[in-house]
């Protein structure tokens, strides 16, 4: 069996000054072709003004079993949110 084209993850920047956002993946022989294919697969209705492609194999993801150690530390830090602090009404908007 012949070798399969590598898989690329596709990130698109929408029209409105947003960050690039992951939209899906596709197969292509190289990065340039991946961009051309991404144009056809993911922006047929003017969904984007810019495309990033990244080889799926180059992405390192956190594993679901590390979810606790990774994210729990922020759960107990309610003081990082502005609503933690009561500002007297007399002070006005802050």
């Amino acid at each position, binding site marked *: *069996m*012949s*070798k*399969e*084209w590598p*898989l690329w993850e596709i990130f698109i920047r929408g029209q409105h000054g947003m960050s690039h956002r992951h939209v*899906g*993946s*596709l*197969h292509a*022989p*190289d990065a340039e*072709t991946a961009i051309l294919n991404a144009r*056809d*697969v*993911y922006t*047929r*209705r003017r969904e984007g003004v810019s495309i990033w492609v990244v080889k799926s194999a180059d992405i390192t*993801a956190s*594993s*679901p079993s590390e979810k606790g150690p990774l994210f729990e530390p922020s759960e107990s830090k309610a003081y990082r949110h502005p609503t933690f602090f009561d500002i007297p009404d007399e002070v006005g908007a802050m």
Partner: protein
Amino acid sequence: MYAQMVKSTGEAVKSREEMTPEERRFQDRIDAGEKIEPKDWMPEGYRKTLIRQIAQHAHSEVVGQLPEGNWITRAPTLERKAILLAKVQDEAGHGLYLYCAAETLGVSRDELTERLLDGSMKYSSIFNYPTLTWADIGAVGWLVDGAAIMNQVPLQRTSFGPYSRAMIRICKEESFHQRQGYDIMLKMARGTEAQRRMAQDALNRFWYPALMMFGPSDKDSVHSAQSMAWKIKINTNDELRQKFVDQTVPQAEYLGLTIPDPDLKFNEETGHYDFTQPDWEEFFQVVSGNGPCNAERLEARRRAWEDGAWVREGLLAHAEKRAARSAAE
């Protein structure tokens, strides 16, 4: 719907007592409406059923290009040609969204293609019927895409994240397909007498195959029960079929066309239309490879795959050569 008779584990749904602790946690997440993501733990049956279902859906999108592609060169106007081209291109895109969702479950794209070609994976029965006239393109958009939407809208809430996200993208684009089909039917039904007859003939031929798209009644199927518990199937086949009939009959009346079912009647008591079931013997024949176009469709896919082999290999060789050259510099 595009996924018909998808086999699940073949076993009855496990009670909580029968589940392992992992299975129980998994079911709790699904019951709480959480999405399952590719790297999360999942039962093997869930993974296998989803691969079968998503791949069958993807294959249907890809094979579904063939009956419509048949009319691109013969569309009656340049505008109709451009519209049909865009629709067929969408179907290719929908196939790709779905293949990439299936691949997150650990199956390769080439493997999926090969399993379509060797017949071990199916595509929807509907694409084994021919598109004989231009009105058929109208009927396909109106009825076939209409039936697909009926199935796909609830699937946006399916439990597997990548499948759900693919469904959301597809649903956004699918409405155009149904409306362009109805628009063709409107023009034909209000055109010359010959055009009206053509429109009626297309409805006559596509009505029952469209009803078959939802699959046989599944009220006794263990496959359905398990898939529904896992939220990879949201409604029963009969529920969706009824909804489709209820929605479509008034649209046919507006066109001034007659649904080819003498027993079709609105039932005041239930608030739904009573209708004749399609010929399930015909359905099983088509699914097992004996429909009017099964051989032709698979042959077209096989030819595309084999004739494209040198392009796939050539582009990969070129990419590797260029990568090696830039590494050497």
